[in-house]
């Protein structure tokens, strides 16, 4: 909706203006990618709209086509059919340098022969900014990623986390409409990765730039995204907010891929045989009153994990995993009654 429409509406006396629908910045429609003369379908039937100022994530196991899709937005790959629009303009015919989209590459791809400041200035020089503007902007983004004192170092003299921040600064410097991140945290160790997740999220809020992240790490995707899409085998499995995707998985794949899920056949709980119920392990409890019990099983193993205890219970030929708070005392082999709140059940259609 543009301003003129909004004015028209208010003039016509409509007092309750509908909340303006978020404007799609990137529209991917019916994109398909076929390799090897029709043999391999890397992507099929991809329809995604990414909004302005959104932190959007493409999540999926390796080989699901998420990186191919990201490289299509950047202009390094071309769809076999379909269309990609950026800010209302068809960008398929444009080479990477004509798209106001910048990318943080998986291994950063910093220019090893240039200093940190020269790396960041590169894009601005290519856009023929003036010397003054360039030095101002370089100082600005160096401050943004807190690397002011490293400006004259070479990439090889930086730690992994610092290189990562230089790559971010370099990609943000030309003020792109969209920042693409290809598994940017996969090369970092766990502690640094957690820090950078937080920093990335903060950076996105501060700059207001649309971030599109590719990752195979579901925790990372849930923690950082406003919305995400789960992909598998070149198809979109589900698109939604992290809460929707975690709480209401669209199918078996999503339920299994995002977090842990117990997939219990409906027949076992006296429901229809063709449905499967997805129940998260942390929602399952041990019933204290027999009338609450929804499923009986035999405890196979209990593993103490510090804050939680993970119990594996065999019931009706399947193993149900329950994650219980604190240390739980129960001997393997004993019979246990399980229960869970009704809203913990989610029926899977497939």
């Amino acid at each position, binding site marked *: 909706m543009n301003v003129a429409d909004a004015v028209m509406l208010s003039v016509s006396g409509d007092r309750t203006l509908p909340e303006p629908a978020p404007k799609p910045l990137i529209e991917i429609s019916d994109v398909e990618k076929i390799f090897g003369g029709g043999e391999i379908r890397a992507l099929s039937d991809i329809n995604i709209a990414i909004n302005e100022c959104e932190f959007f994530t493409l999540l999926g196991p390796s080989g699901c086509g998420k990186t191919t899709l990201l490289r299509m937005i950047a202009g390094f790959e071309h769809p076999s059919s379909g269309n990609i629009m950026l800010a209302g303009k068809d960008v398929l015919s444009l080479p990477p*340098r004509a798209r106001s989209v910048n990318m943080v590459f998986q291994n950063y791809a910093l*220019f*090893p*022969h240039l200093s940190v400041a020269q790396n960041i200035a*590169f894009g601005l020089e290519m856009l023929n900014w003036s010397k003054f503007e360039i030095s101002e902007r370089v100082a600005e983004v160096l401050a943004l990623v807190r690397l002011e004192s490293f400006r004259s*170092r070479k990439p090889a*003299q930086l*730690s992994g986390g610092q290189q990562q921040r230089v790559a971010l600064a370099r990609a943000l410097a030309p003020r792109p409409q969209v920042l693409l991140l290809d598994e940017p945290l996969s090369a970092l160790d766990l502690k640094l990765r957690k820090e950078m997740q937080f920093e990335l999220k903060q950076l996105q809020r501060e700059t207001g730039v649309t971030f599109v992240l590719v990752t195979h790490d579901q925790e990372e995707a849930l923690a950082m995204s406003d919305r995400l899409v789960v992909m598998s085998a070149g198809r979109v499995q589900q698109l939604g907010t992290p809460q929707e995707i975690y709480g209401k998985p669209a199918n078996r794949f999503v339920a299994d891929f995002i977090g842990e899920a117990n997939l219990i056949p409906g027949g076992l709980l006296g429901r229809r045989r063709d449905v499967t119920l997805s129940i998260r392990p942390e929602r399952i409890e041990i019933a204290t009153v027999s009338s609450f019990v929804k499923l009986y099983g035999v405890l196979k193993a209990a593993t103490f994990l510090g804050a939680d205890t993970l119990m594996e219970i065999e019931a009706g030929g399947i193993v149900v995993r329950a994650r219980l708070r604190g240390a739980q005392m129960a001997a393997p082999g004993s019979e246990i009654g399980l229960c869970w709140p009704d809203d913990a059940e989610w029926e899977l259609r497939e």
Partner: protein
Amino acid sequence: MRKFRPFDWRHNPGFGTFTALTILFLYAPLVVLVVYAFNANRLVTIWSGFSLKWFVQAVNDGNIRLAAETSLIVAGCATVCATTFAIAAALAFERGWNFLGRGIAVGVVMIPLVVPEIVVAVTTLIFFSMLDMRIGMLNLVIAHTVFCIPFAMLPMQGRLRSMGTACEDAARDLYGSEWRIFRRITLPLMAPGIVAGAILAFVSSLDDFLISFMVSGAGSTTLPVYVYGMMRQGVTPEVNAVSTILLLISAGLAVLVFLLSRPSAVSRTAGAPASAVPSS
């Protein structure tokens, strides 16, 4: 107590002796040649004391100097030409589209490495005489350029392959035009390969005998061809002295190529290792 050691060729009985014999076989003639270059005696085979007079005599010999000059000019020109062609070829093979007949093109460029040199020499000679091309030193430069291209191209191709396309992609993403990417990113990054290729081309041109022997006419004799001429009048210690100088130049340049083409060459020149820097 004996500690268990995994099998290692170096601890095989007789391995050390065998290695020593091999090295002796390969390098003894060179050592003899170099040692006798410092022999005071006119006769090559009889040692009668240390002297530098053969080096002085060789350097002062007008013909030798002329031949050396020719060699250096030809090698220099051929290196520049071959390196330029090789940069283009390496880029086309490593960065170009997978065009039809690329395999054949690579084969054609590599022909001088595989075909017996005498064949190349004879065909070059026939080619020049068919065209009735007698332009002295320029003939040599053209002939040398042709067989130097593969030598110059191999290290560049290796360098382009090992550096990958990530940096160039990043530059493309950062609004670089192809020409500016080439100048600012590709060329500096492949520089070690270019220098290694140029040195290899220079050395192969300097050391070449067969092709130069066939192609060079009067007034454009290269050093190896001239040395061959001297040998026909009997081996004098002067030949040893000239050979020693050639040997030193070639060996020095070969060592330089080795240093440049080590995989760590670039990261070392880029600065201190990352581990020496405190992490954030």
